[in-house]
């Protein structure tokens, strides 16, 4: 079993990036700075860990990894808020007992500007997008 220990970074260059959220994640108003690091060497999953509360940890995946057709339309205002127009879209995962239980939130992706290292969770105005989409088809 893969053991998750600090640091979780196994990026090629072993770097841990810090992201500043321009709005706190809904439900976690106290935190706005997180570290992000790859969990696996293939870059499928990333951990997002609150700097001031390392016990608060989310799992993210680059949007295209599991959902190649998922290309949400990110409003221009998001780029403005992040300070850059080139943005990366990740989805937040909910991990249960195993892969079959894992879901992704396609309604509210995490949008990151790699230039400014600022991020925000965007609620897309498309009610057809699920908040709990199975990660893999069984």
């Amino acid at each position, binding site marked *: 079993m*893969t053991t998750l220990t600090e640091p979780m970074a196994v990026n090629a260059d072993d770097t841990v990036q810090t992201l500043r959220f321009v709005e706190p994640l809904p439900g976690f108003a106290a935190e706005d700075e997180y570290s992000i690091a790859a969990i696996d060497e293939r870059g499928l999953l990333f951990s997002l860990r609150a700097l001031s509360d390392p016990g608060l940890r989310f799992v993210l995946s680059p949007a295209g990894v599991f959902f190649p057709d998922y290309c949400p339309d990110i409003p221009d205002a998001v780029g403005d808020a992040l300070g850059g127009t080139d943005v990366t879209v990740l989805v937040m995962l*909910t991990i249960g007992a195993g892969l079959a239980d894992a879901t992704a939130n396609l309604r509210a992706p995490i949008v990151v500007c790699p230039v400014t290292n600022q991020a925000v969770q965007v609620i897309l105005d498309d009610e057809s997008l699920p908040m709990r989409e199975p990660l893999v088809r069984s």
Partner: protein
Amino acid sequence: MLILTRRVGENVIVGDDIVISVIEVRGDAVRIGIQAPRSIAVHREEVYRELQRANEAAAAARDEDIGATVDELLARDDPAPS
């Protein structure tokens, strides 16, 4: 709570710089427009509450379950279908 009546085309101003407009009324549905500074997040309440719950569930994942999921992913022939 302030309760007031507005007609289509009329506005309510909140603080200095938040303007809420009644755009259209049809049956029991009201279309409203909200102008607010970018620092003020505006959401449909039920969607925002659902997102709070989804985020809390996402934060509750256990290390061992994440590890097991990573192992399952890496063991697949095609961990990331494309």
